[in-house]
Structure formats: C-alpha cells, structure tokens
C-alpha cells in the first residue's frame, strides 16, 4: 500500500464530512488527514479525480453532505469513508433533477 506524505486532501471546514482531492487518487491509496490537529488515515475505496469529493466520515442515507461547513445536499445512499461523493450518491435539497 502506498503512503502519501504530501497532503492530498483539502478539508475546507472542520465540520465537513467530505474532503477535496488535490490530485487524482487511486483506489487503495492510504491518505493522511489532519483536522484540528488530529491525524486520521483513510483508505481510498475508488478512483477520485482531482477536485472531486471523498467521504471522510460515514454519511447515512438522507443525511446532509457537508462542505464549507454547510449542507450541500443529501446522501441518496449510505456513503462509506473513502468513497467518491458525486451525482451518483448526492443530490441537491434545493433543485431536484426533473423526473423523466
């Protein structure tokens, strides 16, 4: 397993349950995360493209996904730490996709 020394995740607010990948992350990568001085390790479960979101906590179905310290929508399925968070498992509470 590869160990990254350089920070590869950006956590914008300490309340966030997602982080932003600072580079493309491959599955199996072990990433270090420091929030309020506490260091944690998260194993990346799937490919995360640069600037995309990675869950850093377990997010239950229907719970808020938090970035910038604010809800950016809700999880449409339970999301495990290390997972890619995007349109397949996160939807807006503001604008729902139109029913086909």
């Amino acid at each position, binding site marked *: 397993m590869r160990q990254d020394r350089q920070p590869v995740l950006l956590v914008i607010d300490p309340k966030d349950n997602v982080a932003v990948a600072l580079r493309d992350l491959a599955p199996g990568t072990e990433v270090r995360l420091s929030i309020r001085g506490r260091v944690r390790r998260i194993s990346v479960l799937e490919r995360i493209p*640069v600037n995309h979101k990675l869950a850093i906590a377990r997010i239950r179905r229907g719970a808020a996904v938090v970035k910038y310290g604010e809800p950016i929508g809700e999880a449409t399925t339970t999301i495990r730490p290390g997972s890619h968070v995007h349109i397949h498992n996160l939807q807006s*509470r503001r604008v729902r996709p139109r029913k086909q």
Partner: protein
Amino acid sequence: MKPSETIRAYLRADGGVGVRNYVAVMPTVACANDVAERIAEGIQGARPLLHHQGCGQLQSDLIQVERTLIGLATNGNVGAVILVSLGCEGVNVDRVYAAIEQIGRPVSRVNIQDLGGSRRAIWRGRVACRAMVAACRRVRRTTVGLDRLIVGIKCGASDMTSGLASNPAVGKMVDALVARGGTVIVGETTEFLGAEHLLVRRATTPGVARAIRRITKAMQQRALAAGGDMLGGQPSQGNIEGGITTIEEKSLGAVSKAGTATIQGVLEYAERPAGSGLYLMDGPGFEPQALTGLVAAGAQVLVFSTGRGAPQGFPLAPVVKVSGNPTTCRHLRAHIDVDVSEVLARGSAVPAAGQRILAAVCAAASGKVMRAERAGYDRTLDIYTRGPFV
C-alpha cells in the same frame, strides 16, 4: 507578512477616509464623455469616469444613475469633483451637485451647452482640474484604524480553484476585517441563488432575512421574464466534470468569499451601508457594473478573487487581485497581487492565505500601488440599470 492594525489614509470633511486622492472628472451623461476625457488628459491625479448612462432612461434608472454618480463622487478616495454636463440630460445635475456639495466635497461644474461648446468646456474644466489637483496634493495621509475601511468583494473569471482556494481565503480576510470593526460589501445577487437559504440564517434581523429572499427571488424572476433560468441546468456539465455536484455546493463556493460574519443588511445598488460589518448588495455579476456599485457604496479598496485571471482594476480604487490557480499566478503574473495557490498545491491552511490577503489590503490602503494600477488596466466603469433605453 502580518496585517497591520492601522492604515495611512486621507481624512475627508464628511468623516470618511480615502486610500487614494483623486480628482474625479465625472460626466453626468455619456454625451459628455469626450469632454471629460479631454479635461483629465495628462493631468496626474485626475481620473475621467466615463460611462454610458444618464439619459434616455426610465425615471427609476435615472435615479439609480444619480445615486451612483453621487456615491462615486463622495467615495473617500475622491478629493474633489468636476461634474461635466451636456446641459439637457435626463440626470438632474442640480441634485447631483447639491448632494456632493452637502457632503463637503469640493465640486465644480462644467456645462458644455452653456459654455458654447467643447473647446471652452475643456479649457474651463482643465483650469479647474489643475487647481483641484494642487489642492488635493496638500492633504497628507494620517494613521487611522481598520474600522474606517470599507472593502468591496468581487470574483470573476472563476474556475474550480476559485471555490476551493481564493474565495475561502478572501472569506477569512472578510471575517478578520469585520472582527476589527471594518465594513465589507459583497455584491452579485446571482451568486447568492442556491445558497440564499444559508445566507438567510446569517441575517442579523428577520427583516434582513426577508430582504435576502426578496432580492434573490426577484433576480430569478427577472431572468425567467427574459426567457432565462438562473437555477435550471445548474451546476453546468463543466462544473460536474470539475467535481461540483449541487447548486448549493457551487453557490457556497462563490459565497465563501463573504466569510462567516453576520449579515448586517442588504443594500440597493450603490447604496451606502449605514454601519460597519458585512453587507450584501443587490447588484449584477458583470465586472464593471459590480465594481462601480461597490465603489459608489463607499468601498475604498476592492478585493477580487479570480481563477482564470481577470486583469481589470477600477478608476477610483485599488483592486487586490487574488488567485489560487498556479497556472494563472505564473502565466498572468503581472496581474495577480496575492498568490494563494499553495492552498491547493500543499493543502496549506486557508486562514494563513486570508491573513496575507488582509496584509495586502492594508498595504494597498496605505498607498502601495496594486498590479492593475501599475498596468493602467483600470479605466473601465459602468453603471448598472435595469430598464430599457428609450
């Protein structure tokens, strides 16, 4: 670099302060632009404020133009004003003149039709302009606190790095300045859409919360009436490929430049804030119109967050240009004042980047020449109006 707790600024008769000391040569209508430009030509310290409004507009728009002209003329960065009028414009020049005079700003009028044409108007204007510039030069900077500062915030030519690095860093600067008693104005109603329910929670009173809902709803309705939709199709396909999933996320990236302070009020375009702290302004995102509204509301310094690199400044106020995009910071080096690309390159702390932006704001306020000023990329101004030209 640690931000200073004081700045060196010009004290004005109305109690405000300025960080620049210009003579504003201000046409009251677009038809007077040529004369205003010639009056200011070659006179160091004189700034022609050319625009495209002032006549052939609905009364509500003319009132907004008057408010903007008065606001620009009485901005702390202006030491004296020359109003250049054609003579028959829709703007009520007497009213504009009286408002500027009442605030204690030296003001002089040049009326092209009364003076018998452009040659005499230019000559008369230049005589007045030289005398005003000389009088302004006698004013010296004094030490004042950051509580006297009004900073306007804007972002433009945004990309993924804006919402992740430069906007949050600017937000930290906003919080730090508000904590020191300063005033910050954030415009661009379009950007609040999608995050307005979150902004509403930060309103100081229910009335301010209602005003935030009112301006965002009105913006969306104006777009719908014109056949557009501000929320439909958001975030865009390009945003989604870039990693943005929801409209809340996109808007939060944009409004993160407003920090986390309590929202004290919602201002009309070009309206002066009544107190200190954080204010929202109901205005457009279009750069020249947005910056004009902020400066007319009293902002002496503008902070501009950019991703791809927007080079423009403003005729009356220094612009502190901030970018978190390493390519832009390299490629458009001559236009970026604060490089915060370390946030994304090394995941380094956003608060530290915010402190560096505040330090740059203090330096600009105390007279340091910003990149847009040095490049002379700071001539454009435009007044926002809503109705048709008639």
